[in-house]
Structure formats: C-alpha cells, structure tokens
C-alpha cells in the first residue's frame, strides 16, 4: 500500500512541477530553471520546519514566497536571452542552485541531536509529518489538495483574458507588443508564478521524502518538468497531468523491472520518440508556441 501511496505522491509533486513549466512555456519561455526553484522551495521549507520549528502551512507559504522571489529576479535577465540560449541559461541557474545546496551547511543542536542541512551529506531528518502524527494517506491527501487547487487556478485563469494574453505572447511577441500587451510584465509574471508553484512542489517533496540530496535537483528533473507540458500539450492542464501519469507511472515505475538497464532503454525510447513523432504528440498550438520559443524563423517573419 505504501508503495502505491508513494507513487501517487510522486505523481502529484511532478504534476506541480509540470504545471510550473506549463505557464512558462505558454509564454514562449522554455525554462530549465524549475529544478532550481524546486530545490529552493524544498530547502527553505525544510529549514523552517526543522530548525525553526514552524508549522507546515507557514513553512510552505514562506517557501513559495522565497522561490517566487528568486524566480522574479531570474525573470528579468531571462528576458534578454532567447530560445535555445534561455534553455542554457536556465540550466546554468539550476546547476548553480544545486551546487549551492551541495555546500549549505547549517547544523544546529536540538534536544541533544544534530539537525539541519549538512552540506555534501544532504539534509536528513525532515520529520515534520512523522513527528506530528500524520498518517501516510493523510499526507497524500494534503499534497493532492494543493495539486487540485493549482490545477483549478490555472484552468480558470485560462478561461479569462490572462490565458489568452499568455498564449498571445508565446505565439508572437512582436505582435503582442504592437497590440499593446506589456510583454515584460507578462513574461516576468509567468516566471514568478512558475517559481511559486515549483517552490510549492519542492516544499511538499522535502517533507514527503524526509531526506534531501542535491542529486535530486539536477538537469534531469528540469528536463522532466518541461517534458510534461510539452508531451501533454498546451491546450489545458489535464494534458500535463496525463503526461505525468504516463511518464512516471508507465515509464519510470513500469520499467523498474528492467533494473539497471532502465536508463538505457529510456535513452533509446527518447531517441525513437523524437524521430518517429517529433511533433505528433503535440497539438497545433504547442507547435506554434514552441517554434516561437526556440527562435525558429518562419517565412513570414520579415515584418
């Protein structure tokens, strides 16, 4: 039973991760920074509950603020960098964050035991849920309430002008600028919102897994984050959820029986998928936005 609960939790957390990338990709920013924001959220929330003994909700809230704040700061330089270079820049950011966590050491003595992030040895003993008597299924529900709220919020905003503006910017920045949309505000806002959601995912992750290791916050995680909305399509949030179910449920868990050979097959599958159906999994709007995001020139691009 616990195994399945863990899987459901992972799916929930990855859905949040995917949704944070979803908003960004809508505006044409293919960002690998989500892993960094995720890590920032994880460490902030964990430090708050472990060292400062905050309650879980306040810790999550604070973590969301911090990762959102960092995302806001990242949003501005990101404006100067287009397409593939944004991918590289955000990879650089995520790597920087990961290495930063690798070096964070803040040990505190409490009740005779040492707690806190321990640099290269990771950040163990994030025991909030255990210490406060949460049952496993309660944690799962708690987590998924957040997922549901975020999905609902994004779904709803997509029906308002907000959604249309995001997509307009993603499709054609020049036209958006020329029709009065403040592209800077939209893109930075999307980055910030993405950061907040990724931070939420991270803070939930930290408490669910009880032990943080910088190895989690790698480019691989960031790749997953953008893979979900791209695979699932940008029409609506459910596409992302389905993509997470598919990749995490089927591929990662389903291939578990292959053991060590899993990554090898994963690599081959990616290569095959990209060759056979490079666009086939995507709907038209996704293709349109991706084309713009990665700086591919259209014939009609001379203004």
């Amino acid at each position: 039973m616990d195994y399945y609960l863990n899987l459901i939790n992972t799916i929930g957390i990855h859905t949040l991760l995917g949704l944070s990338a979803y908003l960004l990709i809508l505006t044409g920013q293919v960002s690998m920074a989500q892993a960094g924001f995720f890590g920032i959220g994880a460490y902030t929330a964990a430090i708050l509950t472990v060292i400062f003994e905050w309650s879980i909700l306040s810790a999550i809230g604070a973590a969301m603020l911090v990762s959102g704040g960092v995302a806001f700061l990242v949003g501005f330089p990101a404006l100067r960098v287009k397409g593939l270079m944004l991918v590289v820049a955000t990879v650089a950011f995520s790597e920087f964050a990961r290495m930063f966590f690798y070096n964070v050491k803040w040990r505190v003595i409490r009740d005779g035991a040492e707690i806190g992030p321990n640099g290269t040895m990771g950040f163990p003993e994030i025991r909030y849920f255990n210490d406060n008597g949460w049952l496993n299924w309660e944690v799962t529900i708690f987590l998924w309430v957040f997922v549901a709220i975020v999905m609902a919020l994004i779904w709803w905003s997509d029906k308002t002008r907000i959604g249309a503006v995001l997509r307009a910017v993603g499709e054609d920045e020049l036209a958006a600028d020329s029709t009065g949309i403040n592209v800077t505000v939209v893109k930075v806002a999307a980055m910030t919102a993405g950061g907040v959601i990724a931070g939420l995912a991270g803070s939930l992750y930290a408490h669910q897994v009880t032990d943080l290791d910088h190895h989690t916050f790698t480019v691989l995680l960031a790749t997953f984050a953008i893979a979900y909305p791209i695979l699932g399509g940008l029409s609506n949030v459910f596409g992302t959820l389905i993509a997470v179910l598919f990749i995490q449920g089927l591929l990662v868990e389903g291939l578990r029986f292959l053991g060590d050979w899993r990554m090898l097959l994963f690599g081959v599958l990616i290569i095959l998928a990209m060759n056979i159906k490079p666009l086939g999994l995507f709907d038209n709007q996704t293709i349109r936005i991706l084309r713009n995001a990665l700086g591919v020139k259209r014939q009609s691009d001379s203004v």
Partner: protein
Amino acid sequence: MLEIKTLSKYFGGVKAVDNLDLQVERGEIVGLIGPNGSGKSTLVNLVCGVLKPTSGEVIFKGRSMAGQLPSARLKHGIARTFQNIRLFGGLTVWQNLWVARNSTEDIQSQSILRRWLGSSTTLKREIETMLEFSDLADKADVLASNLAFGEQRRLELARAVAAKPQLLLLDEPAAGMNQAEVAELEQRIRSLREQGITILLVEHVMQLVMGVTDRIAVLNFGSKIAEGTPNDVQENAAVQEAYLGHSDQS
C-alpha cells in the same frame, strides 16, 4: 500630428531610410508609395518602435518617441497593421481582439484585476462593435488561423483600430485583394477617418492609394523623391522614372 525629422536607418552599408522628412497632419490620409525596397516598411517599423533609428527623430503630438516600445507608442495613440498578417493564429477571433489593447477609457475605468480577467461589459460591447464593423460577428469563435485571407485582413485591421488610436499606420493592407475587396477596404478607411483617425497608408495597389488619400509621398532608395496630391504625383517625372512602367496605372 506626426513629424518625421531627418530620419535615417542604416543596416550596415544599406541605407534603408535616408534623411527622411515627412509630416502628417491631424485628420489627413497620407499615402506612402515607392518601388520595392524603397524603405516603406522600414519607415513604418521606425515610426512604431520596432526598429531604432540610426539618426533622426520621430515626433508624435509634439513629443519625441525615442526609446519607446511599440506597446508604449500604442498608449500614446499610434497603431499599425502588419504587411504579413501577424494574428494570433491559436486564438479565436474574439480572443485576438480581447488581448489587444482596447480603448483608453476602457482601461482607465477598471481595476487591474478586472482588466486581467477581461470580463467587463463595456469591453465586451466594444469588441462586439469592432466585430460588427469588420463583418466578423459570426466568426467570433473561429480560430484566427482558420479564417479566409480577406477575413484575416479585416481582423488585423480591427485589432489595430480596437485601441482607438489617433494615428493608424496601414502596411500594404490591400495586398492580395481583388477589386471588390479593395473597394470595401476603401470604404472602411473612409469611415475610420470619419471616426477621427489620422491614417498613413503604405501601399502598392494604386487603385486604393489614388482613391482614398489626400496627399502622397513617394520614396525611392530610402529618401523622398516627390510629395503632393495624387494627381501631382502621377504626373511627376521623377516618380515615373522610379517606377519605370508603373506610371500608367491609376
């Protein structure tokens, strides 16, 4: 209203626009013609803020537009259409008008939240008016990429007009149109002038230019070679030379 002063734009060695002076008075419809490569589209981009001038100024309503982004210039009252239509293909007709800036009164009268949600009834009514004006009312929920060519052009125009601009730059709006469509466009442009909008029309299709403009400026190799009423320009030798064979068209 619009003053272009010794405006120049060089791309490396290419002088796309060369020391151009041009003025457009309020309420006028000024035409801008010239052979291909004469700098017309570059000029439009310079006036709208898509390109930065190498030297010279763009002055609108007495104020220099230097350093202002297109969206800022739109706030001041300069709108434009694109030569190769740049609609948001993945959005519906209605959404295309929705995301565009709508009239200043509309924006000033609401809280930011209302504006983001885009749900005010004033806004909805204005969009509906625009759709009526452009004969697109029955296509409101069609994706822009699925529209017929003529409909796309109408939407492009509607989007620019939705901002209630004071100056509207039209970049070859008649390209690819048949005679009936051009006549329709001419009507629309006239009614826009009646609504108080000043228009700078960049065009190749002489039927439209001769029919609707008060005054025409002719460009060649980035500078102005003639300016005057449509008749004057038609008879101008320099213009005939520039076009080499187009001089008979009217």
